[in-house]
């Protein structure tokens, strides 16, 4: 009698059918896992590390302090006084001083610009329609 109950449980449990989850079990699970793994693992990475930025900042400040201490604030003294930019600008702008343009040229340039921007919107709409 003592062993009878054990036999009963053994028999029933050994013959016990396995339970089955829903038909979509694996499909649902794989969707969850794919959603989890497909999440963009984008992490913001600065172009320069904090240490580089700090060292650049410090060296720039040091340079400014050095230049001020060496040459002072006054631009009429020392090294700054020797800089002459006037000659360079005279050469560049000098040629334009006598330049004049006809009205036809001005209107044609304006019209070209206008049509160009009109086309940009048309072209954009066209590419949106055909390529996406």
């Amino acid at each position, binding site marked *: 009698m003592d062993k009878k109950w054990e036999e009963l449980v053994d028999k029933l*449990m050994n013959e*016990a059918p396995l339970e089955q989850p829903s038909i979509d079990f694996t499909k649902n699970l794989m969707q969850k896992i794919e959603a989890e793994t497909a999440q963009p693992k984008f992490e913001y990475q600065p172009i320069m590390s904090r240490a580089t930025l700090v060292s650049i900042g410090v060296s720039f400040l040091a340079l400014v302090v050095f230049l001020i201490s060496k040459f002072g604030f006054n631009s009429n003294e020392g090294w700054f006084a020797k800089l002459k930019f006037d000659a360079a600008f005279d050469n560049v702008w000098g040629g334009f001083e006598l330049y004049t343009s006809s009205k036809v040229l001005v209107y044609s340039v304006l019209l070209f610009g206008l049509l160009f921007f009109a086309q940009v919107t048309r072209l954009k709409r066209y590419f949106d329609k055909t390529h996406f």
Partner: protein
Amino acid sequence: MLTNKEQKLLSDIRGGNTHAYGVFVDQYKDLVYTLTLRMLGNREEAEEVSQDTFIKIFNSLDSFKGDSKISSWIYRIAYNTSLDRIKKNKKRRVEVDFDFVKAKAYADVDNAMEKMVQQEKSELINACMGKLSAEDAAIVTLFYFEEKNLVEMEKILNLSVNTLKVRLFRARKKLADIMQNSMLGEILESNG
């Protein structure tokens, strides 16, 4: 501990082959679902916990060293996930105390069982399991899953073999009594 086939499957999964994981899931889903269902006593919850179990397995596959059977490792995760869910729910399962041992006609039960179809058997077992505590339900289920291998069960449940033996005896005895009662009830009902 692992067969070549298992090793191949595992390395495929680790290599990022999600289809291989689908094959792996199909292989173990019934066992995991059966264990969680018997512990939780609710199909929807068992399905959710089974899904959580397989997600955990997927995420921690790298930590599986292969020093135990892969099924044992899976059962341990399923068992712990179920226990966590029970704790979260704080839902106490109704336990039936059977400290009385009566001389019962087990033979009658045996005959009745023969006539039961699979579906009924499954329902009966689930109903009886529902009257055990979640831990006891797991212990009994794993005892038969692992073909009575207490050493594997020790790894899954983190209990010593001696503790296991005691708990197993009580749980099986209790289950026998529950089965006895519920089945005798059915026999009496059907006989009018």
